[in-house]
């Protein structure tokens, strides 16, 4: 340790240490990803065995690609938020408030592109408000976003007087086919999901923003002592979840050419289940985008499988609840073992 002071910045190359335990190291690094992929493979196999007619036909996969993105698109930025040790339960209502802005601009201007921008902006602002309350007043995000969840849902109902709106005017527009059309038979929302997954992955793993997120979730005091702007990073994360929620709400509404004020209400459980099943720690500091991506498809497939296997739809919530409890517990136990 004597010579430490001088040798910062020189390019003296030392031999690499021998890389013997390659497999062990690989598993330590990518354990959760390997785990989630294994779960995915096993579940898929069992679905094929239990309901071969459903899971061997290509239609079911097209259906997955058209419906799973609606919640997976929110699950991805939500994963970043959970890694940073925060939570957002208000996104189902933000999906709807974004659509209120969309409908308002669409009906007054007839311009779908402007409507899209308005919807995204509303989502951004609603998310930013979550962040401002959490960071500015210093409250737990779990409680704040329960509040804003009710607030925005109430705002939607008050503003629209509980009415729903057809979106036939948007159908046939370029934006419509760009958002929920088909490309070579693949639903556009699936392509958007992949694009967003790549963007979020890069942001989380290859950008300073993501580096800050991991440190904040791991140890907020460390982040502050090391000069990370925790307030800005956290606010921006909430805003990103808001934008994603509004975007998902627009996709889901355009898909059926109709906007119900209850939009988003069915998405809370499966989105959270996808995040936690994907291996993101409820304690923060740990989580992967691949995990959430695969987790979303497992959750989506379970919904289909429950029906295909012959159980009633009532089972879905029970099973989602079970998945959340099991994956969160499993993670807590694994974490205790390494400490």
């Amino acid at each position, binding site marked *: 340790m004597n010579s430490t002071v001088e040798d910062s910045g020189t390019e003296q190359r030392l031999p690499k240490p021998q890389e013997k335990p390659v497999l062990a190291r690989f598993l330590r690094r990518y354990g959760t990803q390997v785990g989630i992929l294994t779960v995915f493979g096993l579940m898929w196999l069992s679905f094929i065995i239990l309901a071969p007619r459903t899971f061997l036909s290509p239609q079911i996969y097209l259906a997955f690609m058209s419906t799973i993105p609606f919640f997976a698109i929110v699950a991805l930025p939500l994963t970043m938020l959970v890694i940073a040790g925060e939570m957002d339960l208000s996104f189902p209502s933000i999906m709807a408030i974004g659509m209120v802005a969309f409908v308002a601009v669409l009906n007054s201007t007839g311009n779908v592109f402007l409507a899209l921008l308005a919807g995204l902006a509303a989502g951004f602002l609603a998310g930013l408000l979550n962040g401002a309350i959490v960071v500015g007043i210093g409250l737990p995000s779990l409680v704040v976003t329960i509040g804003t969840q009710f607030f925005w849902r109430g705002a939607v109902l008050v503003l629209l007087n509980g009415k729903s709106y057809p979106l036939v005017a948007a159908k046939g527009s370029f934006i419509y086919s760009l958002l929920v059309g088909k490309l070579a038979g693949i639903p556009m929302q699936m392509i958007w999901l992949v694009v967003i997954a790549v963007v979020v992955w890069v942001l989380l793993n290859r950008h300073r923003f993501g580096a800050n997120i991991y440190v904040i979730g791991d140890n907020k005091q460390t982040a502050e*002592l090391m000069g990370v702007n925790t307030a800005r990073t956290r606010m921006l994360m909430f805003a990103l979840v808001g934008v994603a929620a509004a975007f998902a709400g627009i996709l889901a509404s355009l898909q059926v050419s109709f906007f119900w004020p209850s939009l988003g209400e069915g998405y809370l459980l499966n989105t959270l289940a996808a995040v936690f099943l994907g291996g993101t720690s409820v304690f923060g500091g740990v989580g992967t985008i691949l995990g959430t991506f695969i987790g979303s498809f497992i959750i989506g497939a379970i919904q289909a499988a429950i029906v295909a296997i012959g159980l009633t739809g009532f089972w879905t919530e029970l099973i989602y609840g079970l998945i959340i409890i099991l994956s969160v517990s499993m993670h807590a136990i694994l974490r205790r073992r390494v400490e």
Partner: protein
Amino acid sequence: MNADYRLELKNISKSFGEVKSLQNVNFNLGRNEVVGLLGDNGAGKSTLIKIITGYHQPDEGEIFCDGQKIDHLTVPRARELGIETVYQERALAELQSLWRNIFIGRELSNSLGFLKVKEMNAETERLMLGSMGFTSTAVTPESAIKTFSGGEKQGVAIVRALFFDAEIIVLDEPTMGLSLKETRKLLNFVRSIKEAGKSAIFIDHNIFHVYSVADRVVVLDRGRVAGEFMTTAIGLNDLMDKMYRVAETGSFD
């Protein structure tokens, strides 16, 4: 203002609610000087350190670095000025990899903020084999910090402070939780800072540690500077007597 000082703090006061942590504290650090900061629990050592590192902003008082007044000292600004800190809390992110810990808050990145992961990995590996003295093949730049021993974690915190060309190194209770051997290594390291022509502020509960490496000792008591001594001019026993008297009565005599 005196340009001969590396760092100078004038009339610094800081309160947290009703608690007056620091009252009109004057403190300076010379070029190539190691100053030991002593004081009982609650004397204001950590608050003073956190003001120097930009984590807390003083309510009153002025800060000069190389004779230049620094108006709003933040953590990033302090780092630009070459003030690096090894915190009592280590300030590590235990679940993250070694390379992420080395570069917290100032990752090597391009102008758009995209990380240069390969470069950070290579730098970390070089530091591991050189300064940190990790030789085990089980430890790689991707290893999570939580598997490291107390001394290894301290090594990471120190190497991190040195990597970015520190001019002033602040060590806040660095021997806490270290074994005897690791403590000796650490004290040698503080001496090496001096040999390299840099300055250091060394805070420790242990008066023996401070006395053995510091050029000058500043004693804080209840938020005030109670006095300062050159270690060449005072014996260890005298210093200890004075410390006890200050803690009990608030004055040296």
